[in-house]
Every structure is written in C-alpha cells, then in structure tokens.
C-alpha cells in the first residue's frame, strides 16, 4: 500500500498565499506520516495581503499563521520536526530568534537558519516539516 499524498487546504482563504500571489504551490501537503509546509511569508490571514514590517514582526506573523495551518491539518507546534528559516540578513537572525524562542514549546524542533535573497522584498520566510 502506497503512502498517502494529500493537499491540505488552509483554514481561511487569507492563508492561501499560493492563491493570493498566484504561486504554483500548495501551502500544506501531507505525505505519509509527515506534513510539509511551504515557505511562508508574512500575510494578513483575513485579507491575504502582505504585511511588511520588521524581522521581528514578520516572524511573529508567520509563526502565528503557521500555527493556524498546522492546526487545520491536525498537527501543532509540539509536533514540528524541522524548521528552516530564511532571513534577508544574518544580522537580523537574533531578532528572528527572540520571537521564535517565545513561540515554540520546549523542546523546540530541529532548525536551520540561513541568510538568503528573498522574493518580493520580504524579510523572513519560514517552512517546516511536522508530524501529521
């Protein structure tokens, strides 16, 4: 029996950044026992519009949205396995970290942080793998 592959719809249309920004991706895909979440950027979950702010405020918004996406898929922060964080400048990593540390329960997931060029001038992008 082959592993299940299922696209999981966001709980509200505003969280469907793939649709808001016409991106060829699904926000959350279940593969077997895992959930894979696309790289998220800061958007207003009500309107779907991009929210531009500081690295801290964008991180805060992304993680709040990630929580909603995970919960809609039957998962949660305490089931996150691995997080990859892309920041526009590694000088901003401590600011991202401050918010990140507040949000994840102990013990937090495995994580990689990397400085990268990000699309559309966003400051932070966060993706994760979680248990379904």
């Amino acid at each position, binding site marked *: 029996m082959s592993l299940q592959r299922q696209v999981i719809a966001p709980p509200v249309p505003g969280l469907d950044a793939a649709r808001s920004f016409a*991106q*060829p*991706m699904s926000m959350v895909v279940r*593969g077997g026992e895992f959930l894979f979440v*696309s790289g998220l950027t800061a958007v207003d979950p009500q309107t779907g519009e991009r929210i531009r702010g500081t690295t801290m405020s964008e991180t805060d918004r992304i993680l709040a949205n990630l929580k909603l996406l995970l919960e809609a898929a039957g998962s949660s922060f305490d089931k996150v396995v691995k997080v990859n964080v892309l920041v526009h400048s590694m000088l901003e990593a401590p600011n991202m970290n401050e918010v990140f540390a507040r949000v994840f329960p102990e013990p937090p997931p495995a994580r990689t942080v990397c400085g*990268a060029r990000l*699309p559309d001038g966003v400051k932070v992008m966060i993706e994760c793998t979680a248990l379904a």
Partner: protein
Amino acid sequence: MTEKLSRSTIQPKNPVLNVSRSANLPHVPGIRIGDYLFLSGMGPTDPNTGGRNHGPIGEQVRTTLNNVKHMLESAGSSLERVVKVHVVLADISHMDEMDRVYREFFPVNPPARTAWSMQLRFGNGCEIECLALVD
C-alpha cells in the same frame, strides 16, 4: 512501535545524470527511506552530453525539472508524488520566469514549495531538490 525503515541509494537510469559520480561529489543522487525519496539538489545538466545547460533561466529550469522527473521515475515515483520542493535560484529576479516553467511540470495539486535565491555552484542558474513518495 513502528517497523524499522530500510535505507537504500537511488540512481538515475541515465548515468549521464549521475552528477555526484561524474563530478566526484561526496553525495548520492538520492536516498530511499521506507517509501520516502530524498533527492539531492539537481541542476541544468544536459541529459545527452552531461554538460551544463547555461542558457536562459527558463531553459535551465526546464532541463532541471526534466532531470528531476527522470530521477523520480528511475526510483519508482513521479512528479505527481512529490510532496516538497526547494527551488534555489542564483538570481532572485528570475522568480517569475522560473514559476512560468515550473507550473508546466506541476499543473494540479502542486507540492509544498520554498523558493529563494543564494549563491550556486558551477555557474548554475537554478538548483532544485525534492522529497517524494514512491508510487
């Protein structure tokens, strides 16, 4: 208690696309763990010559995704069974052009994806890695 997952190496049927072997890199083209496939990052390698296709970014993305497709099919999977993709571009301004070609390969229920830009090796314009389920 779940049963132990087996681990094996996967190879492209076309040996020209086994870049890790031909360039003597310390990785394999992919690993199968249970029914999950983890592919190494692939670039725009010409499947006939093994050379690098450094044409326009749209062509590079098309060559790369065809290579990913070949790799998946060599290992008993397909583009439809991909769950997560990483797309890395050398130039962030190529995002829209990458998307245009990418869309052709994942027309319905596309996988989760993260796309960004950073420095790439060998002068490649793109590198793509993915995680898929076997059929």
